[in-house]
């Protein structure tokens, strides 16, 4: 038997998903072990192996792939525990990363925080002024040299900088992406002076216009570079010692994975690789199950992550905000709001009405019902009050919940509003569900998608609990809980569903009418770099796929959109762009008389990895066979009827027949999550173990 193993390290738990070559999916779980996450990594792998009666060594020896999504980089950034970075910048522009485009106190804030100005602060500099060195050199917007690089000055200043014991040096010069000559030469000189220092050039990490976000990208790459170098080395080495003989792959926010060499060069792409892996899984499953249009809804304890898959393709974004720093980073577009099981319900003194979140009780102290010292009612407490979550069978019974504490907390809150405890609990759920529906709406309807063509893929610990409600509010076709209980570890599953992917960008501006030969000239070096890199990683010829795309916009407009190329003529490219633009930004939002431009070019280089073959009938763990166990029951309060109803409770998917629809209300308790099927909804299970909820 051969296995594909995926591991996703989260803040609390490390999840492991294993797909065997019969298409059977198995899971493992272990507590995460910060600061040395690699211990938890192998604990989780071992846990999965033990379910297959395999010792770690034997298990790893029979693994085809071992793919890993890590939060190590993200944690270093959010906890500000990264490297000591020095920055080389163009003379006169070293302060860009300190100025933060004047938005350093506000970027990414939720609205109510934004409007209370005395509460806003600017983050401490990620590179303090004393480690920012300005170098005499200047290019203009066309990449022409206005002032030559002063190499002697560079040498002197780098020598000084190195004395400050920097771990890494970022090089970010104005317009370097139009002409990398100066950055490349600067790197050569840095490496002569400090050969062991980690170095990043902005034109390599983020070759596009906008010195602030490009500089932040280069600096962040350096900030996590040394740490990721060490971390990836440990994982690879421990894997090798434990018997794994192939290349360990690391999940990337691009939606693919990469071997250690690429990760060590651009560790930035590991940021957010966990949430992105959930989208990768969904994209893979969208093909497998033939659901072309999906909104992924990953709800955990503190955040609700959303992404959109349209025609089997995940939506991308080109920049990311972390801790108010914005950087260019091409990734799958996963957006978050502060809504989760731990979101706190509170009375807004301003309006005397109830609000939910964005504050969260998190995992510690967690909801009141955890009994760990929480003092305010949360979404999970409301779910307990309503009877949706079974306090005796939470996380498969691994955690006993204090239902009385939840009841008391919600009741006290409701007393302020003149509502009963159940009305209050239902209100908490309705408010948070509305927030989530609005978030999904902004990412779909507002971007030109018709939600009636979409299914919601609900996963994460709390996603399935609320999906029936927020999806109905949004107006989608229905909800899929992918692979049943695997939904709670979908990110780990996503890592084994990914391919090797590298992204190569150029920023050459061309105006329509386009010249195919000129485009070929721009793409040729990108493709050459892609082939070289893939070759080094052991892929050649037919095993790699290169896809071109361009970013286009109307001449007098600011916002661009990506248009994949598939052998179009220049004229066809123009009309394709107009279609894509209108679909994305709305009818009549374009203005052709202003001209049409290509502003950036991109090559996606993919090397296909063996995919896990999930087959119909190969039911996933937790749902072994179609035994028609009779469901139990309990009283559940449904907002639809405004009262308690005796509701059938299914333990796992046992008791449900494949492709046989059952009417709600009912509740399915899975080991790691709970799936309420609300009044007026139906559920059926398919041959893959997916739960499909539809509405009347």
């Amino acid at each position, binding site marked *: 038997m051969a296995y594909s193993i995926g591991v996703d390290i989260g803040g609390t738990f490390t999840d492991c998903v294993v797909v065997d070559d019969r298409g059977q999916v198995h899971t493992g779980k272990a507590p995460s072990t910060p600061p040395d996450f690699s211990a938890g990594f192998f604990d989780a792998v071992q846990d999965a192996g033990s379910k297959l009666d395999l010792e770690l060594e034997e298990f790893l020896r029979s693994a085809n792939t071992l793919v890993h999504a890590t939060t190590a980089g993200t944690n270093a950034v959010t906890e500000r525990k990264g490297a000591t970075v020095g920055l080389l910048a163009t003379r006169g522009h070293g302060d860009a990363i300190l100025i933060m485009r004047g938005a350093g106190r506000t970027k990414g804030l939720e609205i109510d925080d934004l409007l209370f100005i005395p509460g806003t602060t600017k983050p401490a500099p990620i590179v303090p002024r004393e480690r920012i060195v300005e170098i005499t050199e200047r290019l203009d917007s066309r990449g022409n040299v206005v002032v030559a690089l002063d190499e002697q000055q560079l040498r002197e200043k780098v020598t000084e900088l190195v004395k400050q014991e920097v771990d890494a040096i970022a090089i970010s010069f104005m317009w370097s992406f139009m002409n990398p000559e100066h950055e490349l030469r600067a790197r050569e000189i840095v490496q002569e002076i400090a050969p062991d220092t980690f170095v990043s050039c902005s034109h390599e990490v983020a070759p596009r216009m906008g010195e602030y976000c490009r500089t932040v990208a280069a600096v962040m790459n350096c900030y996590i570079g040394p740490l990721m170098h060490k971390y990836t080395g440990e994982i690879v080495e421990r894997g090798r010692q434990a018997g794994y003989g192939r290349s360990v792959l690391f999940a990337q926010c691009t939606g693919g994975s990469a071997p250690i060499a690429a990760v060590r060069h651009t560790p930035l792409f590991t940021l957010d690789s966990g949430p992105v892996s959930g989208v990768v899984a969904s994209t893979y499953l969208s093909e497998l199950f033939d659901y072309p249009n999906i909104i992924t809804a990953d709800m955990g304890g503190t955040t609700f992550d959303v992404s959109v898959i349209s025609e089997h393709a995940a939506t991308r974004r080109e920049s990311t905000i972390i801790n108010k720093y914005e950087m260019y980073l091409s990734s799958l577009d996963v957006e978050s709001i502060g809504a989760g099981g731990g979101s706190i319900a509170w009375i807004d003194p301003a*309006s*005397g009405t109830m609000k939910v979140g964005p504050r969260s009780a998190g995992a510690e102290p967690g909801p009141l019902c955890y009994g760990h010292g929480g003092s305010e009612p949360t979404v999970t407490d409301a779910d307990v009050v309503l009877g949706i979550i079974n306090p005796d069978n939470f996380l498969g019974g691994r955690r006993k919940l204090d239902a009385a504490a939840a009841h008391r907390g919600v009741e006290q809150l409701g007393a302020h509003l003149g509502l009963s405890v159940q009305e209050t609990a239902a209100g908490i759920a309705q408010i948070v569900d509305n927030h989530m529906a609005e978030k999904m709406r902004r990412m779909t309807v507002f971007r030109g998608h018709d939600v009636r063509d979409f299914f919601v893929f609900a996963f994460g610990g709390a996603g399935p609990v609320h999906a029936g409600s927020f999806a109905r509010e949004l107006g989608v076709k229905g909800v899929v809980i992918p692979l049943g209980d695997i939904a709670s570890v979908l990110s780990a599953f996503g890592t084994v569903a990914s391919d090797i992917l590298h992204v190569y960008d150029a920023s050459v501006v061309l105006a329509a009418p386009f010249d195919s030969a000129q485009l070929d000239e721009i793409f040729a070096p990108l493709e050459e770099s892609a082939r070289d890199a893939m070759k080094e990683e052991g892929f050649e010829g037919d095993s790699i796929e290169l896809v071109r795309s361009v970013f286009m916009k109307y001449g007098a407009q600011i916002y661009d959109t990506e248009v994949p190329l598939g052998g179009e003529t220049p004229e066809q490219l123009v009309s394709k762009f107009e279609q894509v633009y209108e679909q994305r930004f709305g009818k009549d939002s374009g203005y052709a008389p202003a001209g049409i431009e290509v502003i950036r070019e991109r090559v996606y280089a993919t090397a296909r990895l063996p995919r896990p073959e999930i087959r119909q009938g190969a039911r996933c763990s937790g749902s072994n066979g179609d035994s028609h166990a009779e469901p139990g029951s309990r009283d559940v309060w449904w907002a639809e009827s405004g009262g308690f109803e005796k509701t059938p409770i299914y333990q796992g998917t046992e008791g449900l027949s494949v492709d046989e629809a059952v009417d709600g209300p009912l509740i399915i308790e899975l080991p790691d999550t709970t799936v309420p099927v609300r009044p007026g909804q139906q559920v059926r299970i398919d041959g893959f173990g997916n739960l499909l909820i539809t509405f009347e």
Partner: protein
Amino acid sequence: MATTDTVISPQDARKQQRVWDGRDFPYRPEGPLAIAPQLKLFQAERADVDPITYEVISTKLWNINEEHAETIKRASGSPVVAFHDDFNTCIMTETGDPFLFAPYIQYFSGNAEFIIKYTLENRSANPKIEPGDMFVHNDCFIAGSHQQDIALYAPIFVDGALFCWVFNACHVRDIGGVEAGSFCVQAPNIYWDPPALRAMKLVDREGIREDAYDTLLRFSRLPHLLAMELRSQIAGITRATMRIEQLVERYGPSVVRAVMEKTIDDTAEAVRERLSRLPDGRWSEVTYMSGAVPGDSAPHKAVLTLEKRGGELHFSNHGTDAQTGCINSSFGQWRSAIGCSLAQMLAFDHRFVIAGVHRVTHFEPDVGTITAIDRDGATSCLWAQVISIYMAGKVLSKMVYPDAELRQGIIGTSPLCGCGWMTQAGIDQNGNQFATVMLDHVGGGLGAFSFRDGIDQGGATFWPKVEIGDAEAWEQYFPVLYLYREAGRNGGHGKFRGGHGLHLGFVGHGTTEQTATLVSQNARLSTQFGLSGGHWANTGDFFTIEGSNVRSEFAQGNIPSSPKQLRELSGRAQVLGAKAMYVPFGENDVIEHITFGGGGYGDPLERDPKVVATELASGDVTQRSVEQVYGVVIAADGTADLDGTRQRRDEMRQARLAEARKPAGERPSVTGELTNVCDIAEALSIARDGEGRHVVRCRCCGEALCSAEQNYKEHSACIETQLSNIDPDVFVEDPVFDIDEPVVYRIYACPSCGTAFENELTLEAAPPIWDIDIDVATIRG
């Protein structure tokens, strides 16, 4: 027999009669709106909305308004909108009460209210307000920030009745007037300004009205860009209308209406509750503006007085100079400017719902003045409006000081108070005609708070989502090369330091023809005020070297990358005055713009010496500032010498007193123990003596200064100096411009202990501003 002296024109007659109809006198809705009966307004019993539905609908309305804003951003094609967010959107009740604004420029809010009300009163009969209509407006005399900010708005009907309005206003790159870019600095009156459109129907149920559209585009030097800008605004309105119609369809109009009403009511109630915690009184501010037209060196006085009487706030501009040149605002603008600060300080937790705030406000303008023009006044430079925001912030800061919670909301001046900005126009690097306004200054320093430092490059307060673009973006779109864009060192000193601004240096690049128009304040008359003894910061400065040798410096491998190095270039160097036009901006012409720092808070001698030492090490303050402004002694290891500092500060306070003019007034006689009853500023309080008499006293040493009915400044020690003497390091350029009248920077300090109470920048001949006058009978507790 009548003489010509007694014959007055109908216009003047209307002015004398003070008819607030927006024809010859400003517009102000008074009493119930006069709306034509054929326009049916939505009416319903107020629905009962449960707290859950309220929250759900509130969230949806907020998102609708944000979608409206995002639609504009992505379709407008304007870097001014896309990078700087110089626009806003809002939802208003059927009678024009602004219910919800997106987090972009807030002064559009008050403007929106008057614009809608004017439209209701003047267009409901003819040409009628009907479903499918959209109106366009930019006449500031009614309301509007300046003519470049084009308002587009539409009524939304439910079952044939007017239910609400959706509104947006966007800064367009050129809408005519004598200057490219439409900042008409030389305008002596409105007739040189861009055309003023009044509630003109641009769209009706048939679509865009070609007559109006065609005419509108005709005004602009850049009609094809204006066309796109207008289309984006129409797209935004269309989307918001559709979404509100869906919302009403789903929840019912009376429920949605009830949510709007509750939101406004709650805001009003919160504001009233806050006001109830504060004593009544009167707070005043006087500011001098400069450069009414290029070359003008007269100071122009603006006065703002706030009186709190119980739960009501009365604002007056009495004492403000007559309108002049390009620096004016209309009454509507002035009111909306004050609204920005009111919302920030009293409705910060109510999403700035200004309609609720305005339930307690009253405005009593003298018309024909800089802050309330008559129909002839020019407004395209919007100067008095932005200055009024911060004048209002200052009087409100003093009003709220007695309440410990509201005191947290006090902020020194922030970007755009006294700064300048620059328009560029000419031929761009691709050979196309262009004009634009550069808004880097809005990313300047945020003033100090009452409890911590301001924020370096913290951005403007009335522009919550403010952001400046990248230098590369500007170089991509316009023919310019940044020589430097560096963090300044110009925050106002104080117990809490104001945030630093930006130093910007540019040279024209890739252009055959480019000029700049510069709009700023005379450097000697900074409006970047400090509070409670914190120092003022510098105002925006412009400096240029025409025909410089910058290109040969480039060739030799040099980049002048700081203000100091820029001044080493050869060529015709010139510090530019408050307003300048046709400033050459070609391949060899450099322009420098120093944006303002934020104002400081509290006496700098009260600043934590350890913080001063840290800031010396980081380069945020100079050695000279450390010694001369902060009185901190730095030990050999770079840390603060606390004993040495204490001694030095005592000496400095004594030196202050030695230098100061002795108080004019007598000390008050005090019987028995003084009991503190109300803190009124960082270093001032009101206390009661044994016989129940109230005095103002120093919070540091307890010295009684004067009776509570007197101006404490008359009883303080007063040091008269120049702002530039406080710390020359804050100023890149000496404020060289002479004002027609001598200017003075006064520090009012305790005559006993020397602690600074308040600083003012004013004319030598002007009496001390009586900035705080508390009605002691209303002090609570």
